[in-house]
């Protein structure tokens, strides 16, 4: 199994989820955070104080997929989350050892 992590622009979540569902991904976990990269942040001014905010809001998807689905999942994310403008994000793939479904105790690909 492969563990995929994707950093995307927040407003791309729905399209990305649909693209993943379309290729058979049945589950994922999404969390919020802020990214640092080429995309520049913004400046906030509060009375006299100016703050250069270098981080920009991003969403982080993580999903475990069967080995044979991994490439297609990466491709699906790339297709859906792309705007072509700086800051679109990254997709990382890690190798995984095991998955367990808490409800039933099933393991391996059955757990996904």
């Amino acid at each position, binding site marked *: 199994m492969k563990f995929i992590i994707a950093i995307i622009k927040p407003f791309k979540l729905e399209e990305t989820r649909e693209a993943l569902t379309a290729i058979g991904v049945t589950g994922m976990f999404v969390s919020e955070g802020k990214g640092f990269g080429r995309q520049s942040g913004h400046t*906030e*001014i*509060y*009375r*006299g*104080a100016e*703050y250069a*905010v270098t981080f920009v809001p991003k969403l982080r998807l993580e999903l475990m997929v069967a080995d044979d689905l991994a490439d297609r999942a990466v491709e699906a994310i790339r297709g859906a989350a792309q705007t072509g403008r700086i800051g679109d994000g990254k997709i990382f793939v890690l190798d995984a050892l095991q998955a367990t479904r808490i409800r039933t105790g099933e393991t391996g690909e059955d757990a996904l």
Partner: protein
Amino acid sequence: MNLPSAHQTPPSPTSKKEGFSMIHRSPSRWRPSGLAAAAAASAAGLLPGLARAQELSQEVSAEIAAAVAAALAAAQPAAEAAAEAAPVSGIDSGDTAFMAISTLLVLMMSIPGLALFYGGMVRSKNMLSVLTQVLATVCIACVVWVFWGYSMAFTDGGGLNDYVGGFDKLFLRGVDLASETGTMPEYMFVAFQMTFAAITPALALGSFAERMKFKAIVLFVPIWLTLVYFPMAHMVWGGGLLAQWGALDFAGGTVVHINAGVAGLIGALMVGPRLGFGKEHLAPHSLTMTMIGASLLWVGWFGFNAGSAAAANGVAALATVNTLVATAAAGLAWLFVEWTVKGHPSLLGLVSGVIGGLVAITPAAAFVGPMGAVALGLIAGPVCFVFCTTVKNRLKYDDSLDVFGVHFIGGVIGAVLTGVFMAPGLGGQGDESFSMGSQLYAQIEGVVFTILWSGVLSFLIFKLIDLVIGLRVDADKEREGLDLTEHGERAWNL
């Protein structure tokens, strides 16, 4: 001076006029001239300015008043008998209703108004500390006020009367259901003034927010009220020194705003800058809360300014208009200056201008005309802007929430320019005897005195507290936030 505000005792009360001003209100107060004179004498004792400011536009010579009274007395012998036999009330229900609402509006300025305005500007880990400090300050001030504050501010201080009142009304001794101040029950006057005593130290808290020990604040408030505020209130409104100098302060520019601004700055300097000041992102955690607070401050400020007319009359109405337009002008002025200079018209800028305008119009509220008020706002907004941005950044003191830049600077602008815009030629309420030079002198004298009085005494008080228990929390606690470390709570669990 001939234009005292509601809080103020004019140097030489003109008792006959006062007598009339009380007469021409309601039949229960129609009295034969003998009684009228007696009433006038007693009214002149404490707060004749109240009745006087009410009647600015309606003054009629005392002779005519006496004639009216005499004529009525002749027609109504039974009424005279009744008046002599029974206590006759000078209470006006409209004025009393007006002062009741003004009282609670000034309370609303502190809580939740000021608490939110300040609380929104700190980081979320210190939100509750600000709210607790403001609310505790209000509670302490209320109790101290009825114990000894009212007496120290509004009774005769004997030999020390230039500086402070006496102890005749400790624990409100002698105030009862029948006591009257102007056309309202004295209890209402006690309550109205109480809310001023409550908000003033709370204003100062903003300067040293996010690092002061709660214990230090709990000590600071009653001591500062006793040594600094009550005497100041007496000197300006209770017939003391500044009143005698002729310095005008309609609703509290010196007593409240300059006073609090100086105390705040001293506190900020003594406790030192916040950890990370000038380096870390100390952004407001909720401008939403700040905006709610500013709005409630604006709404409540009518209690502050119009309420200082002490009656529901033309003076209060003028103060109402001015409190709307000076504020609006100052808000817009800050907004547009910031837009031009910094590139963005920010909400924090707009509300800062609004508060600056409210502060500036406070001493001038019914002394200037609406166009003077607009001008005052247009000046106050940008000057406060410069102080809160450039000057503070240059001098590198950490006045966390700009109490100095807004309340002190705004207060000084308002106090000084009252001496300008009250000129009749500029639409103000000064009469033919008005001299801008001498009025400006009196205004500046008042400002300088307030700075010295508040500065020196506030310094000594903070020094004392620092020696005894220390002003500042540990660095670790400051970093974790005062909410958890000082109060054991957390502001938001969303």
